[in-house]
């Protein structure tokens, strides 16, 4: 079976590489539609990562909610505000350079922090069954679940009220 494991590991690394590339694409693509699609690519790679980390339910939910709903929202927004034509998609070169500098600084700092710690004792996963998740959701985390429900309900109404043309 270890040959399969090699394959899976390779797969995961490929997914990570693809994810990073898609993320960079999402940020730097001048055409916003491509940026949206690369975001979808990132989401799917992240779903793959969730699978590799043992969270199957989460992977499927990720694809269902993110790629299904959020991407549709984003693409709707893109189409409705016909952003396509506007050529300049990024801010001034000064702002770009400064932000890249700042972010790379941040990345170096955090990376050094990550690499300097020995994670071995913490590593190791256990694949969770969906019913375990369901049980926990309904027992221990019932309160956040209900609040989430109410929040989504409010968002539903709010989004509609904000977005629709006011009937004047």
């Amino acid at each position: 079976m270890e040959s399969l494991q090699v394959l899976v590991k390779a797969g995961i690394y490929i997914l990570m590489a693809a994810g990073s590339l898609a993320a960079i694409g999402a940020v730097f693509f001048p055409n916003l539609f491509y940026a949206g699609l690369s975001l979808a690519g990132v989401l799917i790679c992240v779903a793959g990562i969730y699978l590799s980390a043992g969270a199957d339910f989460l992977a499927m939910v990720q694809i269902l909610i993110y790629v299904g709903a959020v991407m549709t929202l984003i693409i709707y927004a893109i189409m409705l505000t016909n952003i396509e034509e506007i050529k300049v998609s990024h801010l001034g070169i000064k702002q770009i350079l400064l932000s890249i500098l700042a972010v790379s600084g941040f990345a170096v700092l955090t990376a050094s922090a990550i690499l300097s710690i020995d994670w071995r004792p913490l590593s190791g996963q256990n694949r969770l069954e969906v019913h375990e998740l369901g049980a926990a959701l309904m027992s221990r985390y019932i309160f956040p679940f209900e609040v989430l429900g109410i929040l989504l309900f409010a968002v539903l109404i709010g989004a509609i009220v904000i977005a629709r043309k006011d009937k004047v």
Partner: protein
Amino acid sequence: MVTQSGWIYLIPCYPLVAFLLNVFFGAKVLKEKAAWVSIAASVLSFFTALPFTAGCLQGKIYSDRFPWIAAGNGSLDFGYLIDPMAAVLIFVVTLVGTLIVVYSTGYMRSDAGYHRFFAYVSLFMSAMTTLVIANNFLLFFIAWEIMGLCSYLLIGFWFEKPAAAKACKKAFLVTRVGDIGLFLGILTLFTLFGTLHFEDIKDMAQTAAGNPLLPAAAFLVFCGTIGKSAQFPLHVWLPDAMEGPTPVSALIHAATMVAAGVYLLARAFPVLALSPDVMKIILYTGTGTAFVGAFIALGATDIKKVLAYSTISQLGFMVAAMGLGAVNAGFFHLVTHAFFKALLFMGAGSVIHGTGTQDLRELGGLFPKMKSTAWTFLIGALAISGIPPLAGFWSKDEILTASHGNNFIFTVLCVSAFITAFYMFRLFFLTFLGKEGAKSGHAHESPLSITGPLWVLAGCSLLAGLPGSPFMGMWLQNFLSGTRHGAHEPQAALMMISTALGAAGIAFAALFYLAVPGLAKTAEAVLRPAGSGLEKSMNSVASGIGTLFMKAGSFQNFFDKYFVDGIVNLSGYAAQLAASSIRRIQTGLVQHSLLVAFAVLMVFLYCGMK
């Protein structure tokens, strides 16, 4: 023996009440009767002052104080002080004042501003009397300023005449320059002695002997006198002040106000005495003014101008006396001068009243037409020239004896005395004797209200000299100084010299103007340009000082505008500059602020990680 008496406060109050009555009810109610209110007020103040003069004769001194401003622990208090000097002066002032008010009822009869004139005169009388009886420098200064105001108002009485308007402004401003000096002097005295009362300063004068501020205070006080008594640099306003009505010139510019300067020196004498170099300055200014005044008077063609310059010269004599240290001599001359100079001015007034002109060239041969004016004028002229029995001789002789020590001063004063006699009789001969001038034709004698006071003053000029003369044993000087030896021993020789000078002056005048007809024209031709030339140079000196002040003022303005304001504006501008530079940070772009936030986060992270 010091006593108090409430009545003294009333002396200045009577003219003040008269002033208020004239101001508020003059136009509507009083109209013609305005003069009676003023006359009543001055007569009342004269008779109120009389008992106190008498009191002083018996050696009493009246002095009282009441706190006026309570400042911190000390307090400025006002009050009156009647000592021999004040007693004599109050007597002279009220007497001459009353006579002049009576005189001016006739002189000002048909004038439109009748009540206004008498209102100002009453105000002036109350100010002068306050000044005389004041017991401290501050009250003295207040009265001094009110007198300045009154002189402004009275000189500019016919304000519709541009010359008068200009003259009153000039008078006021020039005296102001002197007043500033006086005020600074008073402040320095206050810093020196902590009090402004005459007696206290007299007692404490010794304590501040070494202090460098003392000569400064003395000099500054003297500036006040220069301004008010028209001494050398600041004398320019007096000749122009002749624009005012003649009674004004008589009252203010002959008898009282100009004398106030000399009275100030007398009051401040303890301080002056302690600073020899200031005394020297006073002496030389006095003599200089005396000589210059006399010389310019020679060339003057206008009666009142001649008398104005003669006043300047006589004041020069008094100031010189003060400079020599002979306070009593100076004061004695002040008293006699008040009488005969008032007489001369009123004489000139009645001549102007009669003929309608002031120009000597248009006058002449008035003796037969205006007999009483002519005779009184002659008495005045004789008095001022220093002919023995009259007042002028004794007081001038006193001054000459005082200056005997310093022979340069003595010679200058003698020459001045000679010139005084000369120009007085030049004036007399040109107006009253000789052939008829253009305007002499229909001249007529003034009414009794004018000639009356003339005769009274003539009498005073005759008698005023005696109290100070040897016949009465120098009584006035002793009385003034309160000691046995008030004056110098009269030296027969000096007396002879002074009478000789007076007689020579008169003789020369007669020679030039009566005896040889042609000679008058040549004399005039020579004297007039010389006199006016000197006058012009004197004026240029005064205006030089003016421009000096102007320069100082403009520099101060420049400094104030550019440095003081500059600094203030600079701070405002700096704040604005800083604000506008910081404002740029607020770009309104969300990503900028996010970038800043992220950078700060990174810094915290870095610090946290170290």
